[in-house]
């Protein structure tokens, strides 16, 4: 029996849209800015309630991000809602110069991130986004794992006074966040304690990590499962403790392995407490055709893949 079989699953876009509307009712500075993405960003209800507070710049991502920076200058708190590949890819220099370097309090909401647009192919996949935005100073990077974290992220980013990039999950996942879990920058969520190996997972891979841990426990392997809602700032203390207290670390993310979670954790581990690691993600290849679930399995981003990585790290056959 698996975790995903036991539990209902959710597309977090609805939680995102509901929370944004709730926030907009409380704070008139909240505006949504989109690039013809009213439907795909789930902003129809927002537009109905706040017609003038939804700015649609059309299919123009550079303008999208620049306009958001200007709205922030005018005292607004803009939530930029656009498909993650185009938001981060087309407008990366605007994210760097107009938002991060200019310290504009804008929330960049990457919709349908990772391989959520499965069959549409690599033009529509956003697996590079975490590598790109992590390279930019002054930008918080939030990767919610479920609807609970998505709601918390919307609230936190609106109040932070700082620029942030928020990946809005689309792939259906169960709720993994305990009711008392913290949602703070630089703070990991301990989902399960263990002392043989640590699995650190973010976003869609979190529930899969829990499923892998359950299977390994049945085989007598004790797995610590950590989730990092904030990829930046990262909970370095939790990473160092994991390296010290368990025999190695497996990271899992729906992103390229070149610069996301795995790279961030590896940098901390190599600097403070060298320890064996396995980094699960999409290697530097363009994905073949397939739906999201197929592609995740294809790249080993599955409970099976995580189990295999843990066994490999422990030297098991």
């Amino acid at each position: 029996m698996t975790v995903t079989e036991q539990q209902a699953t959710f597309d977090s876009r609805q939680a995102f849209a509901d929370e944004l509307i709730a926030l907009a009712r409380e704070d008139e500075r909240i505006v949504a800015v989109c690039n013809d993405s009213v439907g795909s960003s789930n902003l129809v209800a927002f537009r109905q309630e706040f017609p003038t507070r939804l700015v649609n710049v059309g299919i123009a991502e550079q303008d999208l991000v620049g306009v958001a920076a200007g709205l922030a200058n005018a005292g607004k708190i803009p939530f930029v809602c656009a498909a993650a590949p185009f938001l981060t890819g087309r407008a990366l220099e605007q994210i760097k110069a107009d938002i991060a370097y200019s310290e504009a309090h804008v929330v960049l909401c990457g919709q349908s991130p990772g391989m959520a647009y499965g069959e549409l192919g690599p033009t529509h996949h956003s697996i590079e986004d975490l590598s790109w935005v992590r390279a930019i100073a002054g930008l918080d990077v939030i990767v919610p794992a479920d609807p609970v974290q998505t709601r918390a992220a919307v609230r936190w980013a609106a109040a932070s006074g700082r620029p942030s990039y928020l990946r809005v999950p689309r792939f259906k996942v169960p709720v993994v966040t305990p009711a008392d879990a913290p949602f703070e920058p630089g703070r990991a969520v301990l989902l399960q304690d263990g002392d043989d190996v640590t699995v650190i997972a973010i976003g869609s891979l979190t529930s899969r990590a829990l499923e892998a841990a359950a299977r390994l426990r049945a085989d007598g392997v004790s797995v610590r499962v950590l989730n990092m809602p904030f990829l930046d700032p990262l909970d370095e203390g939790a990473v160092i403790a994991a390296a010290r207290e368990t025999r190695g670390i497996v990271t899992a993310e729906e992103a390229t392995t070149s610069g996301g979670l795995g790279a961030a954790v590896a940098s901390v581990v190599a600097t403070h407490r060298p320890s064996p690691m396995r980094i699960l993600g999409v290697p530097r290849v363009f994905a073949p055709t397939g739906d999201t679930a197929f592609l995740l399995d294809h790249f080993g981003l599955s409970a099976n893949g995580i189990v295999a990585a843990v066994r490999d790290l422990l030297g098991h056959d």
Partner: protein
Amino acid sequence: MLPADPTRSAAYREISQRIREGRPEDAVAELERISGEVRQSIVRMIDRAQLGHIGGDLSVTDILVACFYGVLSLDPERPRWEGRDRFVLSKGHCAAALYSTLAHCGFFHVSELDTFMAPLSALNGHPNKIKVPGVETNTGALGHGFPVATGCALGAQLDGATWRTVVVLGDGELQEGSNWEAAMTAAHYGLSSLTVVIDRNRLQQGARTEETKNLEPLGDKWRSFGWEVREVDGHDHLALLKALERSTTGRPVVVIANTIKGKGVSFMEDRVEWHHKVPSAEQVTAALAELAR
């Protein structure tokens, strides 16, 4: 952020009020005097730093002086005052001209200009709003200022506020596609409080704009995008003041300011090599003498 110069900002308030309320011929004389001083500062800054974009600095000077002294509603001692007009220099490589203008207005002390591009100076080669009062967004990469200014004007429109936004673009910069995205957005939203000024000096880094990627018919391009087009001599202060008046059509306004790169220093004028060439000591002396006349 650099502190304001209270003495200069008090003088700025007085001078700019005189320019706005006095006789036009007196205003022009005053603006020309200030432009001359700003240009001399620019030459000295670039001489000291041995770096800078002198040609574009000198072409945009009159536009900056007309905007700051004759048009914009600003308070150098309260640079983030909510009701201020927003000014964006999208051609951020002409930071020396902006810094010189801001210092003359009292946003910070003129002595700070001596640090231009020196290690750890607030006065980077391109303007930084965190360090320099009077800067609204960090520019330098071309094609960024106009979309940001569009967002400012949109924010004012959402609030029903009366403050306006002025953004200055280089002409070569119009080759960046992001500008045309913003041109469509501003026209679509009827952002009549937004004014774009194009420093039309017809030269870019390597050659003439028209040889590199031609911009003409420039006015027709903007008209077809739904803008009110005003074309003026960008060194004629009276014409600039008139052109910088608010839109009366409900459409955003673009001022095509025809300028001369290197304006005011005869051996630099309209010569492509003075995009970012640094003058020799003798050339600095000659330039300052000419600008002081």
